């Protein structure tokens, strides 16, 4: 069966799933399958990501809604994240780009090709094709704007949100320009790495002539298949990471921690959030030869259980003022948990992934670490003070280096008929 036949049979309107049905059961099955998919998709938009209950690996996370998905959405297994620099200087082009991206993202997250294919064989395929037949896999695509977006190019300087500050230089930062910043960031997450890459690749293709990639990082965590209980994932240092994440399925907590509101942010950001990205290289080789005691004191938790030092269970209360027989704190005051706890007053929503980018050709060491991502309502009050404290004394600093950094204003969600950024542009 050649492409032309396929296109004719389906009247140019086949989705990834429909193509799968076609391959499996032929034309009649296709028609039934297509109807099934359409009715499933049209009945599903319940625009609260928090209410999404796992029904299967192919679940669709609705793209349209008050908030962008991919923020309080429970973490998927894989990330493919890229920052773009705009090459156009026309705000009209930027608007068009976001309109095209929105349209594409809505289709992709629903498990469809990026757009409908033409039957003209002298044209390259509209979709790059590597996700044909694959399920949506909880794909989310989240767009954010960096501070440089608000420079003089587009006349938007006055609209730069106050919380979108230039991050200060933190102690022991070793920032590299090629891993930092960017005018626009796109966070793509999915339960399949090929589905995630496919989405980012097609967005980059759509952007050609208007924007180019500035940096790109893929990441992973243990998959839901290898840990069906969904326990706290471990980072590449072998420790459970994210135990104290706030419960953002409670709307009050989400509003408090995550969602921008008009107290600090301009009206066009209402329902958006601020994303911090840190590319944190781990000195894997050094870590691997430090003793268990050193490792546990560094984190302030037991390696095996994730429990606070001196406790038995992961979610046991952190008692930071508890002393041992000699009067020394059980949990070292300069351990990671002690510092990140911030007396319980400051919270951020962590959504980080491990990364492995092969090896450092200069040293032969592994180039691996943490693609730290967090969301907060106002980084001036949340991320920055927390990181300042961590950067100054955290025992962990001996084993990590921050090499990339970005702060991005993640736009509010779009409603059907609208587009991401329509409150701003």
């Amino acid at each position, binding site marked *: *069966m*050649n492409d032309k036949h396929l296109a004719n049979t389906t009247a140019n309107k086949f989705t990834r799933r429909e193509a799968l049905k076609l391959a499996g059961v032929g034309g009649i099955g296709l028609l039934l399958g297509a109807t099934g998919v359409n009715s499933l998709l049209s009945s599903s938009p319940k625009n609260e990501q928090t209410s999404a209950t796992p029904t299967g690996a192919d679940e669709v996370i609705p793209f349209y809604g008050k908030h962008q998905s991919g923020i309080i959405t429970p973490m998927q297994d894989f990330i493919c994240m890229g920052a773009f620099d705009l*090459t156009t200087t026309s705000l009209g082009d930027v608007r068009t780009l976001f309109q095209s991206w929105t349209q594409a993202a809505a289709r992709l997250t629903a498990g469809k090709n990026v757009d409908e294919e*033409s*039957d*003209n*064989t*002298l*044209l*390259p395929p509209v979709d790059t094709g590597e996700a044909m037949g694959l399920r949506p896999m909880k794909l989310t695509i989240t767009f954010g704007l960096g501070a440089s977006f608000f420079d003089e190019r587009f006349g938007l300087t006055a609209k730069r949100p106050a919380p979108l500050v230039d991050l200060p230089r933190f102690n022991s930062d070793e920032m590299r320009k090629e891993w930092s910043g960017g005018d626009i960031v796109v966070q793509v997450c999915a339960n399949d790495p090929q589905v995630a890459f496919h989405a980012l690749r097609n967005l980059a*293709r759509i952007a*050609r*002539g208007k924007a*180019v990639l500035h940096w790109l990082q893929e990441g992973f965590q243990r998959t839901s298949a290898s840990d069906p209980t969904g326990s706290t994932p471990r980072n590449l240092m072998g420790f459970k990471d994210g135990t104290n994440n706030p419960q953002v399925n409670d709307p009050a907590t989400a509003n408090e921690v995550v969602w921008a509101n008009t107290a600090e942010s301009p009206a066009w950001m209402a329902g958006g959030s601020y994303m911090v990205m840190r590319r944190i290289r781990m000195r894997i080789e050094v870590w691997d030869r430090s003793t268990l005691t050193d490792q546990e004191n560094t984190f302030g938790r037991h390696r095996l259980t994730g429990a606070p030092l001196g406790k038995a269970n992961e979610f046991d209360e952190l008692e930071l003022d508890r002393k041992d027989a000699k009067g020394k704190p059980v949990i070292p005051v300069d351990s990671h948990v002690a510092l990140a706890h911030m007396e319980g007053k400051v919270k951020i929503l962590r959504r980080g992934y491990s990364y492995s980018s092969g090896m450092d050709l200069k040293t032969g060491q592994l180039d691996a670490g943490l693609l730290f991502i967090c969301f907060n309502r106002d980084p001036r009050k949340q991320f920055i003070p927390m990181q300042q404290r961590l950067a100054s004394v955290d025992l962990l600093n001996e084993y990590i280096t921050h090499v990339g950094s970005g702060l991005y204003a993640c736009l509010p969600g779009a409603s059907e008929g609208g587009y991401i950024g329509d409150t701003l542009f």
Partner: protein
Amino acid sequence: MIQKWGYPIAAVVLSSSLLAACGNAQTQTEEKKPEAAQPDKPAAADQSASASTASAPSPELQASIDQYRKWVVDQTDQFVKATESFTTAVKAGDMEKAKKEYAPARAYFERIEPIAESLGDFDPWIDAREGDVPDNEWRGYHKLEKALWETKSVADQGKVADQLLQDVKQLRVKVESVEIDVPMLVTGAVELLNEVSTSKVTGEEERYSHTDLYDFAANVEGAHEIYKVLKPAVTAKDSALANEIEARFADLDKALAPYRKGDGYVLYTELKEDQVKKLSQSLDALAEPLSKMGTIVGG
């Protein structure tokens, strides 16, 4: 350009696996062609032959084809002259003159490469790099490039020079009768930019002379010429696409401008990493809309 000759075989393997269910006997047999075989029937010709099963071009498109053919013949005329002068300098042992004329002479060929590729073995004869073909078959411009810049002696290159001039003259004869159709034009323009993307922007084409930017510019000029003859058709079908293509050609021209030097270009080795990246990204930005020119056919 190993990529280029790798392409027909790779393309045949790919298409035969995709079409295996259809039992396409022709592609099946071609798949078995050994890698080292001479590309006696390059892919461009095969593809255009199968794609042109559609109806004959409209009078307007026929006029575009005629206009393009005239330009190709003119370029080939100049290619013969420039090659004559270059090979004469080589044979006279005038290294300085030969070095100066090498890159500008090649540019005529780089502009019409899709046509040359459709004419049998001319491309490997004229443009093969060392390693692209068996050593004992290696001839053409890049062999002389190596003599001029690497071994720094052309004392024993008389035969190579004679052969090159003869090949180029024969190309001139053959080009008169080359079959050009619309599919060949729309794919040819993108092929030219793909050439840039795979070997020129990476500095792999001119490994001894480092005159890659001459080839870069010439390939782009060749693509631009194709666009110029098709422009009325593209504009009629999709004026936004035409505007986009035009703007991106202008952007790329602007991106190349800082590297112009006299009548030519700076050496590839003078480019910094981020400058190469910017050129490459400008090229991708142009190639993407250009690859949609096929829209003028059908529908």
